[in-house]
């Protein structure tokens, strides 16, 4: 009997009962707060993330940072101390949070039309309320929604998704915390799903390079699927806001 539990059982179900290519349930909402210019809340399975966007506004603290041809995108990732099973010491400022902030910045800059707002700054703050695997994708998706809520022009949606390789053969999508802990490689992809551009690719552990194309394809498919789900929420939101001002009430 092998010590390592199989990530996918022989009838093709994962630990939480999903199939290999099945995403966890995504629920999201735009405009949860009134103070920020844009805000959004997303639940991917049990992972819960809040995002807020401020700006574009004048560059804060030291004008020297301002750029003449584009807006500065300032990201801060922070995790509530109670978001993990074991209580965290600090909500931010540790290595992991800083790395997350940088990765988030990388993904968002690719999507935002920064050239429209020279000499300005856009702040994106994400707060993880509950961590259950796939924190980074949830943060990127929440930030995208918050940016849309703030009315900041985007080239297109930027979505992120994780994928892994189960039983050394089957690619599976949207890795939960349980699956992360069980071991197995995790490939994180942030992409512009419509133009099929990858903006960030990160990988932990290893698998044979032959597997890469199919895992990557699975992850990209996940990004497209997520985009479609977000799209429904966004258009519903627009309809709702539109109907109150009588201009979006077309159908």
């Amino acid at each position, binding site marked *: 009997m092998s010590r390592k539990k199989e990530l996918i059982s022989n009838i093709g179900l994962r630990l939480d009962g999903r199939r290999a290519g099945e995403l966890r349930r995504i*629920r*999201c*909402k735009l405009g*949860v*707060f*009134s*103070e*920020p210019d844009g*805000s959004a*809340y997303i*639940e991917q399975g*049990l992972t*819960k993330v*809040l*995002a*807020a966007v*401020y700006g574009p506004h004048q560059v*804060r603290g030291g004008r020297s940072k301002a750029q003449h041809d584009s807006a500065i995108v*300032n990201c*801060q990732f*922070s995790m*509530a*101390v*109670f*978001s*993990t*099973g074991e*209580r965290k010491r600090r*909500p931010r*400022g540790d290595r992991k949070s800083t790395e997350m902030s940088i990765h988030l910045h990388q993904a968002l800059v690719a999507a935002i039309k920064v050239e429209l707002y020279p000499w300005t700054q856009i*702040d994106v*703050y994400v*707060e993880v*309320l*509950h961590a259950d695997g796939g924190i980074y994708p949830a943060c990127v998706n929440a930030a995208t929604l918050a940016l849309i809520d703030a009315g900041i022009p985007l080239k297109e949606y930027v979505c992120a998704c994780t994928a892994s390789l189960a039983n050394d053969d089957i690619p599976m999508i949207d890795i939960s915390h349980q699956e992360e802990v069980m071991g197995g490689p995790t490939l994180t992809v942030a992409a512009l799903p419509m133009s099929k551009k990858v903006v960030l690719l990160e990988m932990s552990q290893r698998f044979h390079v032959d597997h890469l194309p199919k895992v990557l394809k699975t992850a990209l498919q996940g990004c497209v699927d997520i985009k479609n789900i977000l799209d429904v929420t966004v258009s519903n939101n627009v309809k709702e806001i539109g109907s109150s001002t009588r201009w979006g009430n077309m159908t």
Partner: protein
Amino acid sequence: MLILSSEKTDNPARIERTYYLISENIRIDGREREDYRPMEIETDVVSHAFGSSRLRLANTDVLVAVKIEVDAPYPERPLEGKLEFFVDCSANATPEFEGRGGEELAVELSNCLSSAYRSEEVFNLKKLCIMKGRKCWKLYVDILLLEVGGNLFDAVSIAVKAALWNTQIPKIKSINVDGSNIDIQVCDDIFSCTKLDVTGAPLMVTVCKIGDKCIVDPNAAEEQCSVGAVVVAVSRGNICTISQTGTGSFHPDTFKSCLILGISVAQRLEDSLTETLGEIKANQDVGFLK
């Protein structure tokens, strides 16, 4: 959704300057001086925590989660458990909180909370003792400020009380002592838990001085107008902490009237909170998606 309001709120709204209105006993949002804004409270919102609550007071949004760990008691207080407050000002609330920007406010809030909960009459830490001088429960009360729309002290104290009310402490099945090693076995049945006694948990009321009149539950604009405020923490009709915020000074008589106002408002708040918490049903839909 449960709406918690401590007073009538059906005054006609008039748009005038805050300052003038307050002397006329009508505020910018139509409230009277002693009125609270409507609140919503939910419990059991964080599944990782032993107890949690979320409070929304107009634009102020506070999330509180209680986590429990086993710890050794302080040598000078061998019979008592530990209670720690940690406030985190999320940058989501305002960009000023980015990095360490919210630290000053966070420290002020957590100091005020811990001095309000210090007295044994208010919150009995002896209940948290597992084994004298060796093991005790340590309660981490983590407060996350998600949006700041004025009157943080009140909102935080209500949310903390609700979260502690919601907290379930696991029952201990057995303790094995082997020299300096202590093995604690927690009851397997996840439903057999003890609830905390929070009847004495203090509620804080901020009494804000604007001109020569005092108001409760100031919104962000009113906080800007005022030079100072008194925070009164009230537990079972007694005052357990008084602190001042802002830079203003008070005449002794004004100060006393602030205290009287604070106590009476806290009493009303306490009543409606107990009532509301009693009405909360299990497994109702909670969270940000509503």
